């Protein structure tokens, strides 16, 4: 049964119960059909279709969680930020313009959410503790691909140095750098997501690169 019937007095209201109806097009049982286009999913979600929104969340949860994690450096806070960002997106979907890119819009929401959380806890860009760095570099919350022990040790050291260098950047620079270098967003998207001009976004990425180059010069 796809719908749930609930009886109150003499009235039966059929409501969606969630998660029972499979997302239709593009699955293996419908060969030849394309994946449901993102703009279609967004349109359906805007009309209140929770399954369409669930598909969008599935598509973007890894990316948005990763962005939040790299800004906040804390798995629990990152999960909160990603969750709040998706819920905010659901509530604000009616405002979303169809000519905009959903991914950029989501990046903006999750970035702002993570930054607000970071500011809320008055977290100035403090270098991570040695324990945090070790945890981060050894797969505490980031699972690196397995390599041989020597490579792994070197990789761990490099990652620890990266995380430390990143943590020392002002958040404006760090966010722009993460969006450009890790999420591989075009410069214009970085500008749009962070709400600054292209000129400013490029400048921030440039200065972040310079600072990281300086901080990591011993790795050259």
């Amino acid at each position, binding site marked *: 049964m796809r719908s749930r019937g609930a009886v109150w007095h003499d009235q039966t209201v059929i*409501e969606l119960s969630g998660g029972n109806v499979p997302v239709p097009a593009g699955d293996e049982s419908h060969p030849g059909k394309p994946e449901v286009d993102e703009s279609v999913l967004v349109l359906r979600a805007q009309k209140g*279709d929770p399954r369409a929104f669930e598909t969008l*969340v599935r598509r973007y949860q890894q990316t948005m969680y*990763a962005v939040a994690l790299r800004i906040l450096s804390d798995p629990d806070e990152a999960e909160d930020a990603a969750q709040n960002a998706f819920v905010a997106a659901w509530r604000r979907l009616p405002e979303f313009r169809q000519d905009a890119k959903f991914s950029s819009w989501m990046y903006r929401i999750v970035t702002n959410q993570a930054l607000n959380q970071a500011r809320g806890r008055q977290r100035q860009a403090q270098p991570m503790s040695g324990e945090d760095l070790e945890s981060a570099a050894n797969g505490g919350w980031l*699972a*690196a691909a397995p390599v041989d022990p020597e490579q792994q040790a070197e990789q761990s050291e490099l990652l620890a140095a990266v995380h430390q260098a990143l943590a020392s950047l002002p958040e404006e620079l760090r966010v722009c750098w993460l969006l450009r270098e890790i999420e591989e967003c075009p410069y214009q998207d970085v500008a749009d997501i962070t709400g600054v001009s292209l000129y400013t976004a*490029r400048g921030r990425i*440039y200065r972040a690169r310079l*600072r990281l180059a300086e901080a*990591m010069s011993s790795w050259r």
Partner: protein
Amino acid sequence: MALNENQDAGTEIMPCGRDPLEVVDRARLGRMNAHMRTCPYCQAMITADLPAGSAATSLRDESVQAPDTLLPAVMSTVWSELRPGRNIPLPAVNGSAFATEQAVTSMLEHDLDRLPDFVVHLCSVEAPDDEPEPVEPRTAPALRIEVRAAAAYAVDLAALANRARGVAAETLLHQFGLVAETIDINFVDVYEQQGATT
């Protein structure tokens, strides 16, 4: 470099007149031109970027796994805030029964999406506004259905629209006991079937 820098400043053009971001981006892509290969400023910028570039690659290669609890937590809130639309009265003999517009729409979209050569973009269900107070036996309203969809390339659209109408009518009747006054099918896109040869 200055520590109290202006965070809104742009890039600093190098003495050779090149934009440092462009130089580094091109070098990372292996698209260096003749100038970049010989210019000391460009070479210095490219060399200085190597550790940071390597760091970026390392970070990109890290696999970040979102916690399993994230999706259920988001959807729990979404379901609790659902705006399911108006209730549509269903035929009923004892008491009354309703389905929400959202329930009817979702079921139609689900069944129509199973139709070959047809991908639903949006489905809307409109019931008459002037609903009478419930009386028994309940008479279901005739609905107006509008479906926006994409069709596979080179398919007879008129025939496909008729098949879609049939599926929609059958779903309404068998699932809800409802009938449609009109079922409008609007094809808004055409797609090439995956695996099809051109």
